[in-house]
């Protein structure tokens, strides 16, 4: 599903976030990216979602070469990828359900169908009784679940999560990770960048360790 071959990403200013990285992630895999801050985890996820382009090498996602992807094709690639952010990136000018409906609006879904789907996924993350609430009134854990609901509502084959439990206490973090395990079990490919060793050992799955831009297989 995802393939990196000899990928280097150098940011303007000279910082090399990834050096000569090679990796393959098969469809349906659950992969954890570990490593210290600045090791290149976020950069790797951004390259998969075409938020950044590689300086050298080839990144391919679902058979598409990201380096050669035209500006106009990027939105259609992203519609097949669910993104979960550490800072949630929720919109506070609208309520919970309107946040979740946004990806379906963008994809041109019928409004009624979109609301139905959104409600189903909000139910799945346990926020059904808060659907009219403004996200600002939700707790950190609830906001993260809302962000996950938004990432999943268009039923992507691939979910990328950047430090999804970074700001959460242990109880909420376990909650979120349990949710990820469920999605993995229904066949979604997950790539999760995290520091949370407990979660990794609880969920199992493959572990890719990044160290100063170099990728290595870690112990599962």
């Amino acid at each position, binding site marked *: 599903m995802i393939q990196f071959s000899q990928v280097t990403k150098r940011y303007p200013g000279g910082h090399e976030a990834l050096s000569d990285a090679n990796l393959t992630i098969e469809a349906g895999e659950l992969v954890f990216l570990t490593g210290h801050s600045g090791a290149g985890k976020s950069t790797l996820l951004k390259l998969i979602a075409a938020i950044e382009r590689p300086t050298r090498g080839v990144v391919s996602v679902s058979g598409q070469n990201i380096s050669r992807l035209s500006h*106009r094709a990027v*939105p259609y690639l992203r519609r097949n990828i669910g*993104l979960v952010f550490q800072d949630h990136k929720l919109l506070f000018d609208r309520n919970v359900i309107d946040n979740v409906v946004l990806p379906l609006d963008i994809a041109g879904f019928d409004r009624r169908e979109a609301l139905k789907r959104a409600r189903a996924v909000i139910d799945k993350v346990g926020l059904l009784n808060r659907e009219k609430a403004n996200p600002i009134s939700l707790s950190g854990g609830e906001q993260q679940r809302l962000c996950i609901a938004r990432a999943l509502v268009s039923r992507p084959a691939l979910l990328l999560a950047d430090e999804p439990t970074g700001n959460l206490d242990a109880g909420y973090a376990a909650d979120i990770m349990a949710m990820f395990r469920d999605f993995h079990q229904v066949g979604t490919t997950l790539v999760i960048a995290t520091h949370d060793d407990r979660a990794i050992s609880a969920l199992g799955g493959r572990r890719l360790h990044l160290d100063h831009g170099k990728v290595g297989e870690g112990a599962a």
Partner: protein
Amino acid sequence: MMGWIRHQKHALTAALRRLSSQPVATLLTALAMGVAISLPSGLYLMLGNLSRLAGELPAQPEISIFLDTEVPAAHRQAIATRLKQSDIAQARYVPKDEALATLSASQDLADITAGLTLNPLPDAWVVQPRATSHEDLARVANDLGKLPGVAETHLDSQWADRLQAALAFGRTGVWLLAGLFAIALVAISGNAIRAQVLARRDEIHVSRLIGATDRYIRRPFLYLGALQALLGGLAAGSVLAVAGMILRAPVEHLAGLYGSAFHLLPPTGIEIAAVLGLTTLFGWLGAWLSVARTLHQVEAAR
């Protein structure tokens, strides 16, 4: 296709919601646009009314045709036939006796005409051609002058020429002013939209991350610009309606003093539609220019 219509509907409702969520800002922008639009539109209306007034005056140019002293009946017939052609609006025959009688009727000249033993005046035609431009009139006069039996033609169009030139000057002024205010409209719209884009930076950023196309992001802003300008056009209409109401009584009083039943006419439905349509178009254009630029800046800043 369904998806396209859905996107348009979605963008339109989003634009309407944004307009109604900031009523004061919306109203102020509409007023600024309204004032800008009402100036050329008002001048246009004033000019239209003035030309109508000018049309009521005897401003129609006339050609006088003076005949030779002895003209065979066949030539007279030929001239009369020529004057029935389509380029002539109206022709009146003035026999020399009638001309002398008219001349004698005016007091200053009565003494002179009384001393005449022979009528020195020629028979004449007074002709109103259909043409209005100076060149066409001169051509018709020249044409008529070549008919056999015609001694001389005289074209009296100076007064009409001057009036037409003044109106043409006014019309050019209207277009010039309209052009300037169209630029102002584009600028006002662009500025309002720029503020909107900057205020919605987060939404734009998030929408991009979850697969929004450029068009999806641009669309609500374009609708916003068009709707805002349409409101501006309606504001201009209100401004002009109020001005018309205030001016009506004094204009009718003035016209009454001249013994005229002249009154101000409002614009036609087509004119109103044209102004609203153009206004909307320029609002959209301003939004388009501004969104393209501002989005570029917003994204470069990330």
